């Protein structure tokens, strides 16, 4: 064992320098990127009521909103509740029949809203599958507590979904949430017969 070779020492230093520069620049880039994302919040486009919105799997036009005590099936809502109904045209633009529209519309002003029930207005019955390329008039109904104040101008968020031919876990095809795609401001009419 003698003195370490001068060349070896220099090599060691060089490797250490490369590692440090690499690590620091990776940290800086990642920090800068997340700071940039914080700075530029993704703006959800405002859409007029009635205009079609593409959400990936669905094409939806929200037409009108109303609050009342009668469901589209003709039955009354359960006691102590009122029905907030959004009428819309809904089309399945995917390649297969689907009933996964439950998370499509979110009421921005109603915290902890229950899941809506969808009705097919052609039959006035509960909607199950929507067939591809067959747009239908449907109504989404939220049963809310009767004493809850529903704003006259309702803010609605439309959620998008994205198809992945191979997901990250199983490499299986599937639909995944893709964030908010539109925001709609909709006046809510009070049905004749009113809110109980």
């Amino acid at each position, binding site marked *: 064992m003698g003195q370490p070779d001068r060349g070896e020492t220099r090599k060691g230093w060089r490797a250490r320098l490369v590692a440090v520069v690499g690590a620091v620049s990776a940290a800086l880039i990642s920090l800068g990127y997340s700071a940039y994302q914080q700075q530029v919040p993704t703006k959800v486009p405002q859409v007029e009521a009635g205009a079609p919105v593409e959400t990936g799997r669905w094409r939806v036009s929200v037409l009108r909103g109303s609050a009342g005590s009668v469901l589209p099936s003709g039955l009354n809502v359960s006691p102590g509740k009122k029905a907030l109904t959004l009428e819309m045209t809904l089309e399945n633009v995917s*390649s*297969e*029949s689907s009933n996964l529209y439950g998370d499509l519309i979110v009421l921005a002003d109603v915290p902890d809203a229950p899941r809506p029930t969808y009705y*097919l207005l*052609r*039959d006035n*019955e509960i909607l*199950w*599958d929507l*067939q*591809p*390329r*067959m*747009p*239908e008039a449907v109504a989404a109904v939220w049963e809310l507590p009767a004493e809850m104040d529903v704003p006259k101008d309702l803010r609605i968020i439309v959620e998008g979904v994205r198809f992945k031919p*191979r997901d990250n876990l*199983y*490499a*299986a*095809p599937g639909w995944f949430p893709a964030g908010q795609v539109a925001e709609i401001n909709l006046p809510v009419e009070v049905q004749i017969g009113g809110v109980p």
Partner: protein
Amino acid sequence: MKTRFVTIAGVIVAALTLSFLQTTTPPYAMITGPLKTSGQQGEAVTSTTFSVQVGDVARARTIGYNRFGEAVALESSGVWVVVSAELRGFKETMPVHGATIVGASGRRYRQSDRASGAPDVLSTKVLQPGLPTTGIFIFEMPEDETGTMTLVVSEQYEPQLQDEISLTLEPQDEAVRERLDIGPDGI
């Protein structure tokens, strides 16, 4: 110098081999997919657990039937496609819930839940081994999708390592009927 060359070459070969293996791995959906059998309308197509034989196919704008003694008429923006079939189970009692028509564009139309209350619908029946079961499947689809149709039948939708039978349906020459009435014994 030589060792270094051998090391670099080894790493490159390993990287290429791994990327080849990665890109050629069959996807999960294929590995765990259905066990497919296919055939034509009219013939009895047999898998290991059940068989399907398609009889008639009818298309109509409106279908009518009685539900709980009340007349029901269902209209469609497209057409109703009603397929009569005979099913046989071989090994054990089983339902046949999955029925889909692949239309002319390749889109997949599941049997209609709107018409699930119709009489003689096969999805409400259960196959007992050795007892042939007849009934109908009802679909709703745009008229231009009915040009070429393939019926896909399985115990459940999206079967995994279970039998799935595909039947090519004959081209529809007849014009679409205005109304089709479904009786207690189907069409």
